[in-house]
């Protein structure tokens, strides 16, 4: 075919033709290979194989490419023929329209450069900053004070605003042995008879930031321990450890005001957190005791934002509690047992607070220990025969507590009351990580598929 050589078209030539004739729509199609298309004037047509077209253009675009080439060849007075016409649809004679020319798939040579932009959350109010504990200079005996709250952004959204304090963990101590989940019990068996020893272990071995002494023996349905006697447990704990403490009642609405009042009195000046005032009980008496003896008050309501506002308003207006001495507990429900309500309630409270609602702009506390009430946390195995294996409870239990606590940290909790040493460690580590306090191991994930 030497005599026809001048009529051979390389793919590059076709690309140039397409460009020259302003066929914009095909501009980005990548034409590859070094095949030549032979023009055979003798037959009055062009021989072109489907394979050639496949190599010229990717997948679906053959039809359009053929169409264009066909049109172009017509301009040169040539016609186009195929070795196997059935594999590629024959170009039609219809006029070239925008619609037909527009390919669906346009492979591009280069990435389209884009800059990612995102707005910042703008907030009106910051959460109150509360000081827990008092050192010698402030009239107490604590070794250190702890500050919580003060956020100016949603939890861990450090790029939006200042988050000055990390969440802290208070470990639970009870004034009598109580029934504990097996996975928790093994860590406290040796100390459950002595609140002082219990507190010491919590701080020394399990790195609790604070401890909570729960005076549950005062419940008339349990031991009905008199307030005065119960207050001794508070003194024991204050002597055993020098971290700030939380003082809790039994939850009995009739007895708690008396118990907490006495406890507040014996702990005067230590700036404890008195837990708690509730709408169902004499909140005024508890609030007054906390105020009189220099403590903070925990304002506890049950999963209801409006009740939380109401109780806070009462503590502010009636008791005249200073704003920087209120912590709120909007109630923690365990994973699987209402965590969604607790999570959303807290998230809404924090959003409202930052948005300017000064009746809700207080640090939040969570009774994360409630996680252990979930049967999935403590039962040996599922009571449902259809269930897949639940796995050993000594692993499942602490994970259940982590899965209850960490989501609430993301919802805005500043103070966690917890039980299992591992859960405490993980919660502290993770929240500190999210605040950028832990450098961590740097890894390259660009090849993770092969390396995991």
């Amino acid at each position, binding site marked *: 075919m030497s005599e026809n050589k001048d009529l051979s078209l390389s793919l590059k030539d076709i690309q140039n033709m397409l460009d020259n004739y302003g066929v914009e729509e095909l501009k980005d199609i990548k034409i590859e290979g070094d095949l030549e298309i032979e023009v055979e004037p003798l037959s009055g047509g062009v021989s072109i194989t489907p394979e050639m077209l496949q190599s010229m253009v990717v997948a679906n675009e053959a039809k359009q490419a053929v169409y264009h080439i066909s049109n172009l060849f017509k301009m040169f007075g040539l016609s186009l023929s195929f070795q196997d016409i059935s594999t590629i649809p024959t170009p039609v004679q219809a006029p070239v329209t925008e619609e037909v020319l527009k390919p669906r798939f346009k492979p591009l040579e280069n990435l389209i450069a884009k800059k990612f932009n995102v707005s910042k959350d703008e907030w009106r109010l910051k959460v109150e900053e509360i000081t827990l504990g008092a050192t010698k200079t402030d009239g107490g005996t604590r070794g250190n004070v702890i500050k919580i709250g003060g956020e100016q952004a949603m939890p861990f959204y450090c790029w939006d605003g200042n988050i000055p304090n990390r969440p802290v963990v208070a470990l639970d101590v009870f004034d009598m042995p109580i029934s504990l989940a097996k996975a928790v019990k093994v860590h406290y068996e040796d100390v459950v008879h002595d609140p002082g020893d219990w507190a010491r272990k919590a701080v020394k071995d399990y790195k609790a930031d604070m401890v909570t002494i729960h005076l549950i023996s005062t419940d008339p349905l349990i031991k009905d321990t008199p307030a005065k006697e119960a207050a001794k447990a508070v003194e024991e704990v204050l002597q055993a450890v020098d971290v700030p403490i939380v003082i809790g009642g039994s939850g009995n609405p009739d007895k708690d005001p008396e118990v907490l009042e006495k406890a507040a009195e014996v702990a005067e000046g230590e700036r404890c957190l008195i837990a708690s005032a509730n709408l169902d009980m004499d909140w005024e008496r508890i609030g007054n005791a906390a105020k009189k003896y220099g403590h903070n008050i925990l304002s506890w309501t049950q999963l209801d934002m409006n009740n939380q506002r109401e109780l806070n308003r009462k503590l502010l207006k009636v008791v005249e509690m200073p704003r920087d001495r209120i912590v709120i507990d909007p109630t923690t429900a365990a994973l699987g047992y209402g965590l969604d309500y607790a999570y959303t309630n807290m998230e809404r409270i924090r959003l409202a607070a930052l948005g300017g609602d000064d009746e809700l702009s207080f640090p939040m506390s969570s009774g994360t220990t409630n996680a252990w009430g979930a049967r999935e946390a403590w039962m040996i195995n599922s009571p449902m025969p259809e269930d897949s294996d639940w796995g050993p409870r000594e692993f499942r239990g602490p994970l259940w507590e982590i899965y209850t606590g960490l989501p609430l940290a993301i919802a805005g909790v500043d103070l966690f009351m917890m039980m299992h040493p591992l859960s405490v460690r*993980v919660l502290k580590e993770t929240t500190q990580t999210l605040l950028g306090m832990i450098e961590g191991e740097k890894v390259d994930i660009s090849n993770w598929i092969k390396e995991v």
Partner: protein
Amino acid sequence: MKVQSPLEVYNYLPGTNCKECGEETCMAFASKLIDRSKTLDMCKEILDEAYKEEYEKLEDMLSPEIKEIIIGVGDKAVKVGGEDVLYRHQLTFYNQPPFAYDVTDVMSEKEITERVNFVNNYKKFYVGNFLRLDMIAIRSVSDDPEKFKECVKKVKDLTELPIILMSFNPDVLDAGLEIIKDRRPLVYAANEDNWQKVAELIDKYKVPVVLFSPDLDKLSSLAKTFVEMGMDELVLDPGTYPSGKQLMGTFERFIKLRRSAIKDGNKDVAFPLIGIPAISSLISKDKDEFEQAVSESILTILEILKYGDLLVFHNIAPYAILPAIHLRFNIYTDPRSPVQVDAGLFKMGNPDENSPLFLTTNFALTYFTVKSDLESNNIDSYLLVVNTDGIGVEASVAGGQLNTGKIKDAIETTKAKEVIKHNTLVLPGLAARLSGATEDETGMKVLVGPTDSGRIAKWMEDHWESDK
């Protein structure tokens, strides 16, 4: 979605009030479309050819802010993305992120079979249903197309679950796609090096694809480029890192991407996000199994809460899966409607005619808590569940959904009196004020139980034998 007012939607509906959708009026239907409790295809008339334009307009108006993508085929197919809000109380989160568990092309056949079967068969009873696992992710560790192909074949035969094909090597992906193209797998992933070749595959097989880059500018570029090339079934991977400042960055990127898409209307990134808790294994390999599970759990929690629309796991320890599936369920529960259970009379354990009869409401949480308290304390008893529209005891007493009339009706319709011979009903402590009127109305002796069902065991000791 783009519209807020039912009126805007109503303008495009037929307006015939035909009631076929189950609503009285087209306006009522419009408001259901807005809150996404009904879908457009429930309107039979608008599916007619004559309304084609309106249908298309509405479909566009009502589409969610984050694109919804379907992976897999048939009953097991999963919906990914489709979200409209940043905080669940603003509407609800819609599509629970599917959980995918990995196998690799260097695992033994035995191991692959065990893992896939485990995922296939896993179930956990919760609030009246079984929670299950959703997908298999096949990772190419060998980087060998033939090996990958064999592995994909094996998995394909073992499961109907949707599949993710994972490799950054387009030849490997191609080999896998050839085997499983009819099952609509998700391809993982295009990155800044391989994107052109992966794009060719995506066009060839018409399947959704993940775009990977921890650099959000580059991720935006990839997304914009794929959309420009005519491919919009995209999932974005902004990179999951296992610990420290890198993990902090991961949390930040997920939130920024979702905020930009929903709050700022940035269409370039309005796609579902994939989280890879499995990456925790990169740093925890030397640690014991439990520590590995803990690392993966931390990433799981963060990515369920903050905008992961699809998660890939490595760890299949049952104790780690259990809390994860509950958290996902809880967070994706619609906060607008209280979760209810059926009203009726239920046996707790193995009660007989001398067993106590307790009463509670049909708020799912209350019901399951009481049930669990009775069962775990081995209190054989009957539990009468009254329909209070899914409201708990305290609130329904205050709001009137629980009243003596309702209690009397429930006793009569369930024939509760016939299963016991002591004629005694135990009311929840929080419903104490209904006790007198209930005695009058039902002719039963009414005892007031504890305010917290956690104390029923103690209450039984103190009151049941002596007071009944």
